[in-house]
């Protein structure tokens, strides 16, 4: 089985020279996970 989350979250500002969430942005929502990582209930997937 699988679960899919789709949500709206603050985008943050464009980062100059990289950094931020790895998508060229700083602030806003940041992911704390990696593809293939095992997670358990209650762990943070990301933080606003």
């Amino acid at each position, binding site marked *: *089985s*699988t*679960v*899919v*989350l*789709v*949500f*709206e*979250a*603050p*985008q943050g500002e*464009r980062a100059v020279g990289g950094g931020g969430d790895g*998508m060229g942005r700083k602030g*806003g*929502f940041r*992911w*704390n*996970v*990696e*593809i*293939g*990582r*095992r*997670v*358990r*209930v*209650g*762990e*943070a*997937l*990301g*933080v*606003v």
Partner: protein
Amino acid sequence: LNAALKRTKIEWKPIPVAVGIGFLGAYQFYRIQRREQHTQPESDTAIGKDGAPKKRERIRPSGPWFVQVQIMSTLPLKAASRIWGRFNELTIPYYLRVPGFKLYAFIFGVNLDEVAEPDLHTFPNLAAFFYRTLKPGVRPLDPDHNAVLSPADGKVIQFGLIDNGEIEQIKGVTYSLDALLGSVKPSKRAQPTIQGTPSSTATKAHEEAAVRADEEFANINGISYTLPNLFSGPWSKDGTPSEMPTDQSTTSTASSEAEVRADLALSSTSRPWWAPASTQTATALYYCVIYLAPGDYHRFHSPVSWVVESRRHFAGELYSVSPYLQRTLPGLFTLNERVVLLGRWRWGFFSYTPVGATNVGSIKINFDRELRTNSLTTDTAADRAAEEASTRGEPYSGFAEATYEGASAVLGGHALKRGEEMGGFQLG
């Protein structure tokens, strides 16, 4: 006994079960073909920036995997899942339970130390063991209240930013939000959120922005797209759906309304949840896919404090959702049976979608007693709704929708606090 075995003549005869499987396969194929004929092509509903219909490809399996999907479509996966579920509900002899569950735990990596019930004898069958609860405290919540929590135990298959209304499943292959969630009317609440201190000027500006929501565009990640385009659907001008297959509205009582209200920064006054602000925060849409292996804890919990306003049940099929198939079969989630919970949280739109699979047949939502997944009755109703829509000359959206009413009118939905159990996946 030895003599009897030796002297017994063995006669081979055709097993009628094969005929039954063949019939179910043929019926399944016929049923899917019929439903697809009635399902509305997406290109009919997409509206471009200039208001003209925008051509958009319908999500369909294509490429080398098209044949595989066609073959799988002929398999009676739901019937198999139901039989599998019934089988797993058979009571296991008392003395076989502990070795049986320990063997299962060994094969699928279940940590028996976390199971709330220490005596495995109390689980009468595999279905009960599969839907086990955990000891209190073994899944502590992240202390950061700004965190989006993992709703389930599992493996992160994919995550990222939704670009132009499309979710990337594998490199270069995408599927649209419309196909996954169904068409969503961009409510005032789902607009980019304004956070901060209330002010009358900002209130007015936000209200005006909300009123224009149907026509305006959101700019996310530097790319403009319309929320109406992203969530477009067969809605009438007064904002009500022009076609709603079945109304299964459910009234629920939320136990956590106060906490959720506080988290949504709602006061006890009449301040609306989207209460305005002095500063506007640009928002984007994010997604995350988590795969639950057979040995994982199969109940899921609320990732944030949010309000569930409605749910949509897509009958779909029950293909496997193993990581291998997810990598190789484009749009897998848009084909499978799923329950889409739509709502809002502190920052705007929020949705949670459990997707069913062949081996894990049904999805349970704790606060929705009317929901029946992997059900022959539901499938028949979906087929009937598609047929009726076709008779009326209207498109069929492919889902049955229900709305939730909270204990108070302020939140306007079922409130869930972070970490609260929402439901789970059950065998069969």
